[in-house]
């Protein structure tokens, strides 16, 4: 990946400037190291602010809200590494949840409603993919358009009321414990492990890095750039729908304004995890750590009685600071 990681080749005279950095330096210039340090720091500060904080059950139960965004952020990491972006998944969560709600309310079986929501997610991803890859439009603006479109369709489906009355087995997934851990958190951890393996160990995963580094070179190397990107867009849609269903289960009802502003949280998790906005570099581990960092910060602020509205300031500042830091770290490691 980065130049600094490569060991010196035996060929040619060794030049002073080309000597490999010591291992600890290599580890430190990786952006995930920054995320990990911040995570430890935030944990210490939060425990110092309130004695109630350092309680695993409390942190895990407050994590369920963020894991919905975090699961989507994992897939978004892959898409951003591949050099594209998707700002529509929060609106996609709302639309999928409203599709679920509308089908369930029509008296059809819940299984069918879940399938309809996932199908809607796939179609949303497909629409983004077609507009970006077939028509060659920039993903940043396309997904601003589809963000507005999906949120609007959710509003048309659900109006300004909330749809509820789902069967008991569907609701309350955040209270269900698997191995003593809330189910959404387990889903997030398993998804992170699977995607990390996919990105690091499979051919397609390595190709995603190559596409983001240089789409032109990737195409010449015979990588099916469009097919892989299309797959990622559709995966984004389906994952957003899944997150929408998790939210519907947690809230026991759906509204069109579900997950409003969630796109900021998702992009923030990916950026904070050290993935480069310019594509080509990044890791699932970084996003995984960043998601926990946000959980700690948000929980810490709540425990310290910081109003939710001031948390907007912190989130915005974090996004800007993290992208500056990542840029500086990558610029240094390239030297």
């Amino acid at each position, binding site marked *: 990946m980065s130049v600094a990681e490569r060991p010196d080749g035996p060929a040619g005279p060794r030049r002073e400037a080309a000597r490999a950095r010591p291992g600890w330096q290599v580890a430190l210039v990786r952006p995930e190291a920054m995320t990990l340090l911040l995570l430890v720091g935030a944990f210490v500060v939060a425990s110092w602010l309130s004695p109630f904080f350092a309680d695993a059950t409390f942190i895990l139960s407050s994590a369920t809200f963020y894991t919905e965004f975090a699961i989507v952020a994992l897939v978004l990491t892959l898409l951003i590494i591949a050099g594209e972006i998707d700002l529509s998944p929060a609106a996609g969560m709302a639309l999928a949840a409203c599709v679920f709600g509308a089908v369930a309310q029509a008296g059809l079986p819940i299984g069918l409603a879940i399938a309809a929501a996932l199908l809607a997610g796939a179609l949303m991803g497909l629409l983004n993919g077609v507009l970006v890859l077939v028509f060659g439009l920039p993903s940043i603006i396309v997904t601003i358009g589809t963000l507005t479109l999906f949120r609007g369709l959710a*509003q048309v489906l659900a109006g300004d009321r909330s749809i509820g009355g789902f069967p008991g087995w569907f609701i309350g997934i955040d209270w269900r414990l698997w191995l003593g851990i809330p189910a959404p958190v387990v889903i997030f951890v398993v998804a992170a492990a699977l995607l990390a393996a996919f990105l690091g160990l499979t051919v397609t995963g390595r190709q995603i890095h190559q596409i983001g580094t240089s789409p032109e070179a990737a195409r010449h190397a015979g990588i099916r750039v469009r097919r892989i990107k299309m797959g990622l867009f559709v995966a984004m849609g389906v994952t957003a729908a899944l997150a929408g269903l998790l939210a519907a289960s947690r809230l026991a009802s759906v509204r069109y304004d579900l997950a409003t502003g969630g796109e900021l949280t998702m*992009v923030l998790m990916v950026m904070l995890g050290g993935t480069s906005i310019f594509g080509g570099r990044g890791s699932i581990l970084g996003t995984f750590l960043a998601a926990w960092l946000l959980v700690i910060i948000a929980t810490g602020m709540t425990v310290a009685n910081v109003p939710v509205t001031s948390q907007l300031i912190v989130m915005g500042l974090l996004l800007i600071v993290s992208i500056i830091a990542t840029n500086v770290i990558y610029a240094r490691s390239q030297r």
Partner: protein
Amino acid sequence: MIGALLRGREAGLVVMILLVVAVVGGLAPRFLDWETLRIVALAVPLVLIGAMGQMMVLVARHVDLSQGSILAFSSIVAGMMFRDLPELPVVAGVAVAILLGAALGLVNGLLVVLFRLPSIIVTLGTLSLYRGLVFLVSDARQVDPQFIPRGLISMSQTSPVLGIPWIVIVAAAVALATWAFLGHSRLGRQIYALGSNPVAAPLRGINVVRVTLLVFTLSGALAGVAGILYASRFGYVNPGITGLGFEFAVIAAVVVGGVSINGGSGTVLGTVLGVLLLGTVSVALPILGVSAFWQDVFNGAVIILALLVDRGLREGGARALRRAGA
């Protein structure tokens, strides 16, 4: 040739507007009424002023997602000044709103040029940051109607000439000034040069930092103007609602008006027509009995369609250029 295409785009927009008026007027005759014209005229000034700023940012190949939050910040601070210092002249509140907007826009620009960051991510961050500041300075409290000065509110109700309300005249003046600046000043032309080719622009002696800072500052200042007009038009300022989603409505109108996302092209006339088209449709939908819930669906679809049309035009233009060159 490209000029002809752009003129074609503007003529197309005029035809679209007339078509909407004819179809809606045919279905619901009360649409063809002076009252409708008045509603449209009151609906567009805010978006029009925001669109002038957003347009300059887009021409320079950037984007400003924080306009709605800047609008809210300028508006709430001015509103709080009116509330807490009742003797303050209205002009002082207006000046503060514009200056604050310019300052927040300048911060966007500085982040973009100092750290070489993509503007979309910077302004996504400041969208949240500035909205948080709105809640912080206002203590999450609304500025209620009784505190907005009469003089300011009457700008949306009274008219100096021909029954045209003041805020429409302000918006028209802003559009004219933008047209003069972009088309007939050295700096204005430099914005186009920068957006057409950011690599070549510094080689031709254009101060990229200055031009970039300028477009973001202007976009912020104009969002500040829109903030004052918001207080005038709606008569209150709410930290959570004011300006929410404003940037998406503005971007939709600007893109429909033919301003290219890829920088370097777009006209003030086209942008004005884009704003008018979307404004007319937003007034027409409820008259046709379409639920207000469809508004966002329509806005989203319009952004995507405009992008597709823009792409088609660009390919057509490139083909025409190749033919002319051969």
